[in-house]
C-alpha cells in the first residue's frame, strides 16, 4: 500500500481536469436562450403555422403523434397543446436536455444535430410523478 504514495502528485492535473469538467459539464447557460426560443416558437405556431411547429418536434415525438392520431399537420392543432402558451418564464438546461416553463404550458426539449427540438408538450404536473404530456415520444 505504501507504493500508492508516488501517485499523489500525478493526481493533481487529473483532478484539475475533473473539477473543470464537473463545473462546465451540463450547466448550459449558453443554450438557455436557444432552448427557450424553440419552445416559444413551437407553441406560437401550433395553429398559426402548423408545418413549422411539426418541424420543431423531435423525430420520435412526431412518429408517436402521427402513429396515434394521423398526420402532424392535422393532429397537432387538435391536441391539448395550448395555442400560444405565452412567454417562457424559466428554462433549465442540462447537457442536451432542457425544460421550458411557459406561462400556459411546460415543454421538454432535446438538442439534436439540427438544433433544439420539442420532445414533449402540453405537459401538466402530476405530483412527484413525471408530467402528463399530451404530445410526447416513447
Amino acid at each position, binding site marked *: *500500500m*505504501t*507504493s*500508492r*504514495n*508516488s*501517485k*499523489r502528485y*500525478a*493526481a493533481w492535473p487529473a*483532478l484539475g481536469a*475533473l*473539477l473543470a*469538467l*464537473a*463545473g*462546465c*459539464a*451540463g*450547466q448550459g447557460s449558453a443554450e438557455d436562450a436557444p432552448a427557450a426560443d424553440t419552445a416559444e416558437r413551437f407553441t406560437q405556431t401550433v395553429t398559426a403555422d402548423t408545418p413549422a411547429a411539426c418541424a420543431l418536434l*423531435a*423525430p*420520435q*415525438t412526431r*412518429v408517436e403523434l402521427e402513429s396515434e392520431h394521423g398526420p402532424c399537420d392535422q393532429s397537432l392543432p387538435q391536441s391539448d397543446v395550448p395555442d400560444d402558451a405565452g412567454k417562457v418564464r424559466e428554462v*433549465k438546461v*442540462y*447537457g*442536451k*436536455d*432542457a*425544460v421550458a416553463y411557459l406561462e400556459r404550458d411546460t415543454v*421538454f426539449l*432535446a*438538442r*439534436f*444535430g439540427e438544433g433544439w427540438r420539442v*420532445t*414533449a408538450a402540453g*405537459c401538466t*404536473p402530476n405530483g412527484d*410523478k*413525471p*408530467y402528463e*404530456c399530451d404530445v*410526447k*415520444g*416513447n
Partner: protein
Amino acid sequence: MRQRLRNNGLSLFFGAILLLSLVGQAFTGQAFYNEQALDSGLPTLSLGEYVTSSQFTVDVAENWQSEYLQFLLFILLTIFLFQKGSTESKPLDKGGRESDKDQKVAEYAEKGSPEWAKRRGWRLSLFSHSLGLTMGLIFVLSWLAQFVAGHSAYNAEQLQELSDPLGWRDYLLAPDFWNRTLQNWQSEFLAVGSMVVLSIYLRERGSPESKPVGEPHESTGSQG
C-alpha cells in the same frame, strides 16, 4: 534508461493501466449512453461530447473520491488502531505519532532527509502531515466534483423522463447522490478490511504486502 524503467516500474505500470481503463470506460460509457438514447429517440453523444459530459464526469469522480477517502482513512487510522498479525498494522508497541528520533526529524534528521524535515517550524509541521492533507484535499475535491456533475447528470435524466430537475439542496439529500457515494465507499472499506485480515493468515512470497512465508501469524507489521 533501463534502470529508470526498473526503478519506476510500479508507478509506470499503474499509470498505464489507469489510462487504458479510463479510455475503455469512455468508449463503453458512450456506447451504453447512446444505446439508451436511441431506444428513447433522444440525441446521441459523440466521444468528445461524452468525455466532457456530466455523465462521464460523475462516473469517474464517484470512484476517485472513494479511493482517496480509503487512502485518507487508512493513513490516519493506522496511526492509532492496530490489527495483531497484519502487515497493514504498525507493531503493537508503536502507537501514536512516535518520537522525533524514530521519525528522523529536526536534530535527528539525516543527511539525506527532506529539507522540511530538518528544522522545527511550520514547514516541519506541514510536511509531517502532508500525506494525509493531500489525500484529504483530493477526496474533498473529487467528492465535490461528483456532487456537481452528479446533479447535472441526474437532472438530465429527470428531463428525459419528463420530470422536474432538482435544485442543489434537494440533490444533496437525494438517493442518487448517496447511493453513488455509499456503493463506492462499501467496496473501499471491504478492500482495506480484507487486506488487513487476510494478510494475517495468507502469504504471497516476494510481495512487500505480505509477511515472509515463514513469518508467524502473530507477527505484526512485518513485510516480505
